[in-house]
């Protein structure tokens, strides 16, 4: 059993945080869109686009940081396109997402093969990986020091993004308007709030965040691009957003949960004979349970008024002498 416990190390937690980062970024984007009332299932597409465009830009511009910015821009553009098609042509969100996911998955490989050589994955030695940063004072803090220091800038950005999103959504005017649009579009529009604009902004920001998340994988981690690099992380992000009930802090914790499951699975595989996949399964199962719980709560709330009425009738009957109307 000693082998089992050797799995839990600081490295594991650091791994979790790293693995959680792309998910966190995409999930924040997804949660923002959900809060605005637009179901965004194209997170995978935006991440993949960011991964590809980011690394290619990093190569051609000779600067990985610029690559990150270009990735964010690309994701944002895709988000804008998504918003345009949805609002102008009333395309069904799910079909739109399926189409985008398919197109980007294939198109990125197509462009890679057409322009960078007929290869399965692409890399170049000149590309610099985004370096890790050690925070001088913080890393000296006992216990949690190593957990907070030593990541690359994208990771820290994701933490910042979480806090910023919280502030904007709950402490700022436009954020409140966005939440109003998502929860009661009629109420928002009646007071003059531009729902289309806010939803478009949400989709654009989500695109940028996803693009950054994807770039994290290519520039920040593996230093290459390959077919279907995001490997379903966009869908994980959708689950994380749901699990975190679309609240930035909830999404943060949910993403950490997913990241931990991933890291744990890898570690377990290396150290023991236990199957890793079953661990990775838990967050999805948890999300499904959350979905069920939410639906159950809604159902009970709806029927509560009725049940109260019936209870009232019963007490009336009990206290009144039985008098049947003529």
């Amino acid at each position, binding site marked *: 059993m000693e082998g089992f416990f050797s799995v839990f190390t600081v490295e594991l937690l650091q791994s979790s945080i790293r693995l959680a980062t792309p998910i966190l970024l995409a999930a924040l984007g997804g949660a923002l869109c959900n809060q605005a009332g637009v179901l965004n299932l194209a997170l995978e597409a935006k991440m993949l686009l960011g991964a590809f465009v980011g690394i290619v830009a990093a190569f051609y511009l000779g600067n990985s940081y610029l690559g990150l910015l270009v990735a964010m821009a690309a994701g944002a553009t895709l988000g804008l396109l998504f918003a345009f098609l949805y609002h102008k042509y*009333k395309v069904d969100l799910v*079909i739109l997402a*399926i189409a985008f996911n*398919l197109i980007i998955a294939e198109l990125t*490989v*197509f462009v890679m093969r057409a322009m960078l050589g007929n290869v399965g994955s692409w890399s170049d030695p000149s590309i610099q990986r985004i370096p890790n940063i050690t925070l001088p004072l913080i890393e000296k803090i006992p216990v949690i020091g190593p957990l907070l220091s030593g990541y690359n800038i994208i990771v820290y950005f994701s933490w910042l993004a979480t806090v910023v999103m919280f502030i904007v959504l709950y402490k700022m005017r436009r954020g409140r308007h966005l939440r109003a649009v998502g929860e009661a579009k009629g109420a928002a529009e009646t007071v003059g709030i531009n729902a289309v604009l806010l939803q478009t902004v949400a989709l654009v920001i989500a695109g940028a965040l996803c693009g950054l998340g994807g770039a994290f994988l290519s520039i920040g981690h593996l230093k290459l691009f390959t077919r279907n690099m995001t490997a379903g992380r966009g869908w994980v992000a959708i689950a994380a957003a*749901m699990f975190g009930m679309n609240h930035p802090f909830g999404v943060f914790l949910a993403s950490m949960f997913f990241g931990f499951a991933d890291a744990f699975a890898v570690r377990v595989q290396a150290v023991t004979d236990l*199957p890793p996949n079953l661990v990775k399964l838990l967050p999805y*199962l948890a999300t499904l349970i959350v979905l069920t719980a939410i639906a159950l709560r809604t159902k009970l709330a709806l029927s509560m008024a009725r049940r109260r009425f019936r209870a009232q009738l019963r007490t009336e009957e009990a206290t009144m002498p039985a008098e049947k109307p003529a």
Partner: protein
Amino acid sequence: MNDPTFKKIQDAVLVPLLAILSGLVLMGILILFLKKPVFESYYVLFTKGFGCEAYGNCVFISTLERATPIILTGLSAVVAFRSGLFSIGQEGQYLFGAAAAAWLGYAIHLPPIIHPIVLMLAAMLIGAAYAWIPGILKVKIGVNVLLATIMLNSIAMLVVEYLVQFPMRAEKSTTAHSPVIDESAWLVSFLPGSKWGVGFVIAVIAVVAVTIYLWRTKYGYEQRMAGQSGRFALYGGIRSDRSAIRAMLISGALAGLAGGIEVMGVHHRIMTGFSTGLGFDGLTAAILGGVHPVGVFIVAILFSGLKLGAQLGLQLKLGIPRELGGTIIGFIILFVAAGSLFQSGITRVRALLDKRQARRVNGEGD
């Protein structure tokens, strides 16, 4: 009877047709960018996807074989959609069906003909069971079917991957795969050297069966009414809950069957990376095929042909990356979904044609 049915077919077919044409035009444009020959590309694409070369060497056969699982998962989506449930769980049900067939293929030993039948029933059963979960959650609690099936797909992928890597893993294999199933379980193929066989026939039978089910049985009637107008169904006395569950069971069975056939007829085992998104392809076929079994059949073959043509033709012959095929298919979906793009054009052309016909009827000129 002649005019209205013709118009109905016209309406159903026009937008997808225009979308496909637009997609092909887009493909031409992209090929131009690559400075590759455009018309030769089209030629190669179609001959390598749908054509026959030497006698008996028809690529079209491979296309039909590739289309088989897509037809079945597409039918699965059609049944679910037509009951009003937006289930995209075909991928997960497909995987479980494949796993079941793969396992029973080597775990039990039965004589030929019986063995595959048992396997298919098992695949259908497990697919139905897995589809029952989101169905009952929706009917009893009101859980969103779309979101639930997304989660269940991921869970299925992980569970099946685990099964392949551990309990079902064949001894001493570097890439995980299950033992090859007994030959008695293999689906017969019609031509030597090709995997096209009984599986395709089953898919065709399924197309007919689903069509009959939806429009000629009372169960299909129930679910269609419930899917189109819930209030009307309640008012008329239809038990929508029951018909929704029934629809999910059938939907799951079809997707599970797809997985089973893929194992029994093509790979003869299950391995890592078995999931290639065929569930989603079926979904796409359903949407583009107008949520109709015959539409699914046509679109599935079309897509498989395009993909194969892109792979064997564009890539091998002209050096154009085969991902172009998948890209164009994605754009076609987009064009169909944004159908209103075409709508104004269509109405204008129709108006023009009507005016011309009216003039003809009233006598030329005037």
